[in-house]
């Protein structure tokens, strides 16, 4: 008995120690966020990730902590990615408790945005545009700045451009991987990207047959392509490669690709390394893959080894304008972003795209955390406090800067 108590005491001590360590650590991190500009107001901004482990999200987090926090007097509090609407509301409350005054959300649960409004925290939905139906529910909330990111048209265009580039390069045998479309995990982004691919293929002469209603495929569904006048051989596949979620994905994948060869793969999501591995496993090699992902190191390696041939996606500093919108709002200039009629704005931001290793490497180098695409020099010009001449129109332009725009400004 005595011995057991001593063990327990030790464990309790360890827990206490870890708590103390945690508290001290956080205290230290407060210090390390020493303002570069003493005149800057100190703001705390909460971040709600859409997924804790997605490469894209990790790049954004990296930009926020490694660049923005160091160059502005801003502290970021990261929440755990919420799994459903209720936890999104919880996360908003927790961020408020953690001292956040505004929220940079990569999710758009209306209830969470309402909660932020109720708690008088500015909310911007970044990284992609909210769907219209979600937007309609919340656009009138006074603390809702709006949504910023590639629009669904951009998503559509991304898919369209990827296929168009393949066709232009003379790729004949194309695998279209529509990711989660056929599952009960629908996402508008994926629908629009696929529709872009579909229309590009149809424009090239292929004939599309949508899935029959009541067929195998749930959700929006993925149909089949006949080559028509295009001279293309097109195969479609959908699914989600986590075995415990989509237990027959690998079966469907092999069913779809067996006995075929491919020049190119067009994906509505990221994961070129996985697709390449599966294709190799099925005995198919030397395929060029195009994905919608982000300009990060993993994609870079894949480009160098020739797995990736086309990338369209976001990049770490694409969060920059959203942060500036929040700073403006916190400074009392929410109207720079919000519409004149008092509703939240919908501001479009373009993707970047690369179709060669060199192209990719150049763009990636351009968005380095030492000097990112959206750097302090550019962004300061759109902080009303520092530059009172900013207007709503110029801010909209700023949010929509393309690669070339940014390049010209550097």
């Amino acid at each position, binding site marked *: 008995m005595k011995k057991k108590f001593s*063990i327990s005491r030790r464990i309790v001590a360890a827990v206490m120690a870890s708590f103390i360590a945690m508290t001290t650590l956080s205290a230290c991190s407060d210090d390390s966020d020493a303002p570069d500009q003493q005149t800057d107001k100190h703001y705390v901004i909460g971040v709600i990730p859409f997924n*804790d*482990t997605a*490469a894209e*999200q*990790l790049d954004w987090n990296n930009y926020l902590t490694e660049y923005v926090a160091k160059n502005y007097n801003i502290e970021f509090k990261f929440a*755990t990615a919420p*799994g459903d609407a209720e936890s999104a509301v919880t996360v908003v409350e927790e961020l408020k408790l953690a001292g956040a005054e505004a929220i940079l959300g990569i999710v758009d649960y209306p209830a969470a945005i309402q909660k932020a409004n109720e708690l008088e925290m500015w909310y911007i939905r970044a990284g992609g545009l909210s769907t219209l139906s979600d937007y309609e529910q919340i656009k009138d909330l006074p603390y809702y700045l709006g949504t910023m990111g590639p629009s669904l048209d951009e998503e559509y265009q991304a898919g369209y451009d990827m296929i168009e580039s393949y066709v232009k390069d003379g790729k004949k045998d194309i695998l279209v991987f529509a990711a989660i479309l056929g*599952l*009960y995990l629908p996402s508008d982004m994926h629908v629009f990207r696929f529709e872009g691919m579909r229309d590009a293929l149809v424009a090239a002469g292929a004939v599309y047959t949508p899935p029959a209603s009541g*067929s*195998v*495929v*749930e959700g929006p569904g993925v149909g089949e392509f006949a080559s028509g006048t295009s001279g293309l051989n097109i195969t479609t596949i959908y699914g989600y*490669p*986590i*075995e*415990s*979620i*989509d*237990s*027959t994905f*690998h*079966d*469907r*994948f*092999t*069913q*779809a*690709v*067996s*006995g075929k060869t491919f020049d190119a793969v067009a994906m509505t999501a990221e*994961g070129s*390394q*996985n697709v*390449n*591995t*599966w294709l*190799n*496993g*099925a*005995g198919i090699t030397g395929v060029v893959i195009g994905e919608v992902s982000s300009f990060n190191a*993993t994609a870079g*390696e*894949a480009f160098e*080894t020739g*797995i990736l041939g086309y990338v369209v996606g976001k990049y770490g500093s694409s969060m920059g304008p959203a942060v500036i919108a929040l700073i403006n709002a916190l400074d009392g200039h929410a109207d720079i972003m919000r519409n004149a009629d008092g509703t939240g704005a919908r501001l479009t931001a373009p993707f970047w795209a690369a179709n060669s290793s060199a192209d990719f490497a150049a763009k990636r180098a351009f968005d380095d955390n030492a000097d990112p695409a959206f750097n302090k020099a550019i962004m300061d010009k759109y902080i009303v406090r520092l530059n009172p001449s900013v207007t709503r129109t110029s801010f909209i332009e700023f949010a929509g800067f393309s690669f070339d725009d940014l390049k010209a400004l550097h």
Partner: protein
Amino acid sequence: MKGAYMKRLAKNILLTLIVPVSVTAIMLTACQIKGVPFWAPGSGFRAFIYSMMLAVFSAFALSLHMFAGRFDFSLGSVAILSAVIGGKIALAAGTNMFGMLIIFLIVGAVLGTISGLLYLLLNLPPMITSLGVALAYEGLSFAFSEGRGIQIALHPELLGGAALTPMFLILAISLIIMYALMNFTRFGFNYRAIQYGQKIAVDTGLNEKSNALVCYAICGSLVAIVGFLRLSYNGALQPQLNLSTSGTIFSAMLPLFIAALMVKVCESNIALVIGCFTATIITQGLSSIGLSAQTRSLISAFLMMFLLMYSINGQKWRDYFVNRKAKAAVQVAVA
């Protein structure tokens, strides 16, 4: 004597094969009627074996714990964490796929042992310990990789592990090892003694703790194989949070229930493999004839429920059909 033995053996083999063969026949016929291939020519078979292998090793680990009266939520998280750690070591060491497999086995065993030590130290119900371990391991697999998981797709020398030949080799070797372990080692002997009579075995002076610890280590290695196969097949693995790794366990339940049907007439390890085979055939067949994921999971859940009912009420149901006299005899036996 020998004749009787042969006869019994033949009967047992027949009884063992009845379920998998009939299920396969039904599924093949269904595909035939639908006019679809059961699996894709070429690599479809590999995808099938891969699915089966995942089931086999999850079920091996789960059953090893379950028959000793433990339930382990953390198996899925051990698979992922051993992939993250093992993968990183393998990349750093510049080894090949065999080296990677061995690294995985060791890492899995270490992770399993840690989990087992925690169980022994705390002496809480294993289900509770395993919840804590699952949370911690999921968190660590995130923390160790800064959330990025592990990618080996660009290292072809590490990738071959999920090809047909290595998979069959792994299966065969594991089966032999598991069979030997259970039947020809002190561990297996003590394990069975504890399984059937924990109190007596402990009173007789058997060291339950060391047995449990070895069991944890073995289970760790077994699910590390799951991690190895998933990483080899997919080229990359993402960490999962919020106990979502426990899905691995739920998917190993159906094979276990099927295996339970034939465990009386068949060596338990083989029964388990056959159970996994049958379950995978069912999933694959239902998918090939075009049922949606929802319908499939409904069917397999109902099947599991039915098997559960059968295993508990089967005797009663059978009695219902035989005459009352036989029923009386059974009741005497029960009393």
